[in-house]
């Protein structure tokens, strides 16, 4: 069981280029033994979901600092449903007002990490929520 690595797709949708956070997370998850695919900047929701399918990941993480989160998260969720990715989780982080977090969670986002979140918490969230593979 422990031989199978958790596969994570990290993506930075939208036009924003601030990638300090997503790159630090990518490295921390790799150091924690996960397989991390980082898409690079400015991926559309379609590109992100297609990459997640192709890479057969367990979980997708989106980093959004631009204020476009209420547009982008729902679109990614819609596309994931369309493609039948019911067993894949979606989480996110960035500059996201607290009032928006319940709305995002209701829409199906598993967790939202704000500035100051520790990489340990993110690792713990992923380990506890990704379903073990057969």
């Amino acid at each position: 069981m422990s031989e199978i690595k958790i596969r994570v797709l990290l993506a930075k949708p939208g036009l924003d280029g601030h990638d300090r956070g997503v790159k630090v997370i990518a490295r921390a998850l790799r150091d924690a033994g996960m397989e991390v695919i980082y898409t690079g900047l400015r991926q559309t929701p379609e590109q992100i979901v297609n990459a997640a399918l192709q890479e057969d990941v367990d979980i997708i993480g989106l980093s959004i600092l631009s204020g476009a989160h209420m547009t982008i998260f729902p679109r990614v969720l819609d596309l994931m449903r369309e493609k039948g990715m019911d067993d894949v989780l979606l989480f996110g982080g960035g500059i996201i007002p607290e009032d928006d977090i319940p709305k995002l969670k209701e829409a199906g986002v598993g967790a939202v990490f704000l500035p100051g979140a520790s990489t340990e918490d993110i690792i713990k969230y992923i380990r506890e929520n990704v379903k073990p593979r057969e």
Partner: protein
Amino acid sequence: MSNPAIINDRLDELQQEWEEKHLKTSLRKMPESQDEFSTVSLKPINRLYTPRDIENIDFERDINFPGMPPYTRGIHPTGYRAKPWTMRQFAGFGSAFDTNQRFKYLLEHGQTGLSTAFDLPTLMGYDSDHPVSEGEVGKCGVAISSREDMEVLFDGIPLDQVTTSMTINAPASMIFAFFLATAERQGVKWRDIGGTLQNDILKEYIAQKEWIYPPRPAMRLITDTFKFTAAEMPRWNSISISGYHIREAGATAAQELAFTLRDGIEYVEYGARVGLDVDEFAPRLSFFFNAHNDFFEEIAKYRAARRIWYRVMTERFKAKNPRSHQLRFHAQTAGVSLTVQQPINNISRVAIQALAAVLGGAQSLHCDGYDEALALPTERAALIALRTQQIIAHETGVVNAVDPLGGSYFVEKLTNELEEEAWEYFRKIDAMGGMVEAIEAGFPQKEIHESAYQYQRAVERDEKVIVGVNAYQMETNELGEANILQIDESVARLQEERLAKLRAQRDKAAAQRALDALKRGAEDPDVNTMPLLIDCARADCTLGEMCDALRPIFGEYQEPDF
């Protein structure tokens, strides 16, 4: 010219006595709280600094008087005694109408210069109605797609009476063209306008990552603006060479200093390559640094920056005009240091950071709003930020003496060490062939990522304390903030309508002719694109149309996977 009175024969004796009789006892009774002390950049700091630490300093060569080379103590002989720094709060959100109101509000409350934040579509050269702009219009700054938008932005603000800064890089020359066309409509002469175009593409590849074209054609657009402003706009800063974003991306203070000044060297070299005399354009180069948490390290960074730039301009470029030798800079408090947790605490962080910028001799300053880890600042948060500057200027007394920390063993030693670290990076980057080559190899990007990661680890090991985040946490919301600035999608709809109307009403043939002329000019490296872009702005071409016209000629940048 070291001062023999400072280092006298007794120094070593005294130090030995202190260590034996006082320090040892103290450490035995009360051990120090950490094995190692370090700055926020993880730079180790000694327990104490003494005259021994500055024994190699030559007063005339390294410090001197303010307004005299190497300008360590500032570029003005009287510091802030004649007038304080320019209080220039960065602002922009929603539509041009919204931001025009915020500008007027800030000016009414005593702000002395304007600074414009653009939204992400504008920063990337897309019109508000482009499909990729969806969800992003007016969110991180103001949406400007046309000359008409720019006219609304500065409506009722005479451009020759207040200096204006514009934070725009990849499409800097297009936005500048809108600005110049707006000035014409206001009846203001270009040569009477003071202000700054950020126009610093190198730090985009390094840190902020809002690019359009690859580095080399992008550098051509910049040297075109150097040529244009050198001839037409004596009060205009053609570039603001920016360490701010490099630091925000995770660089240490030394890396911020080194990469920013090495970018400056690159711009001077590219200017010289297109035939400009260094003294024609170097006096209008300006700089932009971060004001981060580590108080003394920041002050030392600014002092080192001025000294390094003096040495670079005189030794490397043989500049003769003293204005070319003087590094002038804007500072902004560190957005990355603001916490979502207990956001009211950010007011204190910002005040201390701003104080460091002032003690380091900033020419202009922006204080962040305390709510900016949550969203763009509300009017209230922006006003408190401006008031913070006014309190520092009028209440603390720090403006009374010029460079009040000059001569501090600690600050002078730190200044020297940061300068040395910068020269070391210059040697490495020179060996790679220059900053453009270093960027293409991913060198500064990788260095910054490493620093960002090490800092995050230090925080998670609790080696660095962030109040409210990994210490002194609270479950209650007493230091919280309920109101944040919300930008809804009505801004995008307004922009779509305005753009549709503009495209329908303009002289279509004239707009097309201007774009065609721009394309022809771009293909000839000897043609200056700036006048052609101004013609496009006058003909009501949109930002997206101008940027698109150049994409097939210049190509588009794709970041390699470093």
